[in-house]
């Protein structure tokens, strides 16, 4: 239902009641935090990136954390120390994710130990995937003289009724991640055939672009992380998301299923 508020805000801006201007705000400096972004997908190797936060006024040159000891352990199963394949990026060489299994992540740096636990849910298959360009969301195909302002990517799947399900859709355009915060729960459509609409501005996309969509079934703790990362729309106070890491306040560890979809823009 946060969607309502978002649409409301967007609509107001659409009605051009508001103007914007860049202003100068002095923000405080902050202690650099370790950011762990860990993932293990079914049939894929574990990948963990470790970076650090910087001050708001700094240029985006995010420092990486080298030489950390990163261990991933399957509950009642194998364990592997991840190798640093490029600075700040750690990957497993043999251990791959299996649906229904629980994984423990342990990250040891010079002065911090960060742990987390997450389970890969049973995967849910995408029934179909389609793309239309439209005048505005919900208007269907763009016609004649009206410009197509949006691309609508539709993912159809069947939500199982017997369990609580959470989904994340990760989109990248030509290999560059788009927005990573698209998460969904089945609170309002449990047990139904679902059409997920991803709305993207046409401006972001041009002919020949390769759109990669990763459809994931995620753990509730990962849903909570991405659900709470959204900023403070319409005056609510923004705050750091609820992480499933212990020992760090920023980042997450996601064990998930994964189905990859691709679309080449005509």
């Amino acid at each position, binding site marked *: 239902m946060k969607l*309502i508020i978002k649409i409301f805000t967007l609509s107001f801006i659409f009605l051009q009641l508001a103007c914007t201007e860049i202003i100068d705000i002095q923000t405080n400096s902050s202690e650099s935090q370790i950011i762990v*972004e860990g993932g293990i997908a079914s049939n894929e190797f574990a990948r963990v990136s470790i970076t*650090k*936060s910087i*001050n*708001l006024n700094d240029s985006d*040159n995010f420092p990486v954390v080298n030489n950390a000891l990163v261990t991933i352990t399957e509950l009642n199963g194998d364990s592997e120390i991840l190798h640093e394949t490029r600075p700040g990026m750690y990957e497993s060489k043999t251990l791959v994710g299996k649906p229904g299994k629980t994984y423990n992540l342990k990250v040891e740096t010079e002065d911090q130990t960060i742990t987390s636990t997450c389970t890969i849910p049973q995967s849910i298959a995408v029934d179909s995937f389609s793309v239309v360009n439209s005048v505005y969301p919900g208007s269907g195909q763009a016609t004649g003289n009206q410009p197509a302002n949006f691309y609508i990517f539709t993912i159809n799947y069947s939500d199982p009724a017997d369990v609580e399900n959470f989904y994340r859709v990760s989109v990248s355009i030509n290999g560059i991640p788009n927005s990573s915060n698209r998460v969904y729960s089945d609170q*309002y459509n449990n047990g139904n055939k679902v059409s997920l609409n991803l709305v993207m501005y046409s401006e972001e996309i041009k002919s020949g672009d390769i759109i990669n969509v990763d459809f994931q079934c995620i753990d509730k703790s990962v849903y909570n992380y991405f659900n709470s990362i959204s900023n403070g729309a319409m005056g609510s106070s923004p705050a750091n998301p609820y992480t499933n890491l212990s020992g760090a306040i*920023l980042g997450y560890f996601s064990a998930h299923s994964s189905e990859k979809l691709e679309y080449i823009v005509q």
Partner: protein
Amino acid sequence: MNKCFFTLLLFIFSTTGFSANCYSLSGTITDAASGESMIGATIAVQEIPGTGVTTNSYGYFSLSLPEGSYTFTISYVGYKSIVSEIKLTANKQQNFKLEPESTQLNDVEITAQRKNHNITSSEIGVEKLEIKEIGKVPVLFGEADILKTLKLTPGIKSVGEGSGGMFVRGGNNSQNLILLDEATVYNADHLLGFFSTFNSDAIKDIQMFKGTAPAEYGGRTSSVLDVKMNDGNNQDYHVGGGIGLISSRLNVEGPIVKDKASFLVTARRTYADIFLNLSPDTLIRNNQLYFYDFNAKVNYIIDDNNRLYLSGYFGRDVFNFNNRFGIDWGNKTGTLRWNHIWNQKLFSNTSLIYSDYDYKVAIQMNYDFSLKSVIKSWNLKQEFQLFANNKNTMSFGFNSVFHNITPGQLEVSEDSEINPLQLQQKHAWENALFFSNVWKPNSHLNINYGLRLVAFYLLGPGDFYSYNNGEVTDTTTYSSNKVVQAYYNLEPRLNVAWVFNDRNSMKASYSRNTQNLHMVSSSTSSLPTDVWIPSSANVKPEIGDQISLGYFSNFSKDRYQFSSEIYYRWMQNQIDLKNGANINANEYMEGELLFGIGRAYGAEFLLKKKYGKLTGWIGYTYSKTERKINGINNDNWYPARQDITHDVSVVAIYELNKKWSFSASWVYNTGNAVTFPSGKYQINGNVEYYYTERNGYRMPDYHRLDIGATWVLKKTRKSESSLNFSVYNAYGQKNPYSIDFEQDENDPSKTNAVMTYLFTYVPSITYNFKF
């Protein structure tokens, strides 16, 4: 409990027996031209200085004096006083009619009765505005607005530009009790706060209690705004109205039976969206954004001792985006009242009150979807006023309200993937017994003490949940009308005035207010989708305690009024939300709540010039308000969003001549508290912001000048027409609506602070008429 109440009643009646050789003068005071009863008119006795009463909400007064001859002065601001010699040898009932002053250009003659009610009454933390005054203060779009004008007085704030809501002495927007003819108005904003629900054509009287309301009022912890509608002219028919650039209004009033019964109907409609039709872009053209509202009232004077009133309000906002997304919302209220004079000293009012608020969101995308939410309240209020003797005026009675809440009803078309959903209805029964007495032991002391006992019951049927960390741990099912949870609270109220002389007084006050109906809002600005929930096992009653101290002084023959007040407030069981909380259409919404405490303190200064060619005021507030909520800001104290340290407002109205009057208002306040990031990091290639503390930053200072002019085209005894010009934000200050942090479009490694602002200059013109 009932037994206790009747003992109290007995005591009250027995005290009246002592004044055996005293007689009373009682009656109603009305406006001679319109027949409207006058609230707060004074009746003073020249022979005994310091003796006097003011009329109650229905224009009724009663005064007890020993047998003898007296000179009574009946007066009201803006009206010619009546001096009447009356020989009291028996109880006497007499009504008075006051004629309006023909001219207000010269200083009003200061008659025998001094206009110093502000000094001598026990009222502290009260703002009163006169409708005539409000009509002259310049506002956005030229629409006279009581809420906007109230926010120009100390201690009452809005946060940022154009945002709705009202924050009183550090309280939240959800903690204000807003009454229209005694009916609760759940959402007092139109168009997200650019207008208020009150059409000033329909309003007679406004009183704002900043946490110091007497025991008759209850149910919210922060403030009470008591708005009373006009009764309708019972002498002549009148039609009035205004035509403006984006809104028009019309009102009709007149006698049904002269001197006996009258009616009033007012209506308003905005049409800002017609301008959208001028746009060549169909996306913009196909939108709707407007509101309309109606006020209606009839009253019937059955005989000298009985009077009936029926009043109502209906308002609706409509927003529609290309027939794809629509939301409409509004309040409905209805009040049936019966005034009865039992005897010379005992006045009663019985009210049956209904109010509701609902919103409906409709989305038509690949399928149809609608979400509806409603709160309805039925209220029976019985109030007695006992004019016991010239030292005691008592008020007592009870209040019983039944609330029915439909938190969310999700309807979808058959082909939809979304499941229809009907959240459980919630039922609550809120009761109160109250007693208060205005006691004037001598001419120096004026004490108003009272007590309110609140009994709140959350009722079945339904499933009720226990939570641990937001997860449901236990479900209990209750059948219909079973008490699920009960809360009893005692609310003492005390206001004391020490009147040094007729120009200076000190006042002190303590009051406790509790709140069993809580508004949960996913934002601090007033959204139509705010959700109301009753107290439950998880949600405890909110409690507010306030102490305040004030010094009041009038000088230059009461032309100037000065007041200064300091206050401290404690707040318990305050409610906030988790990050990303889903509050609409969520059966387990209580699991998304966080709880804590709050504190606020401040000092308020107001210098007001009441009479003369130049009138107006200067107000200054220093204040601080903080919260400590478990789960926010590492459980440490942090400033509430409405924490504004310095706040200045200046209002000036200048009547040049009979044709022209000018007005200006200027506001300046230091920025409210806001959360900005202090760092940034990368997640999956996107830049995210790192927050180190809640509300640790300040918005830029806010300031704005509004100017207005009224040109009276024609004015006779019967008719009047005028043009009102105004410019909102006359020097075009870009005041931020919000500040967001975004990556620079040209240099994505750089972070910019982007300010969104809504208005620079907004000129408007309104034609007002009355005949």
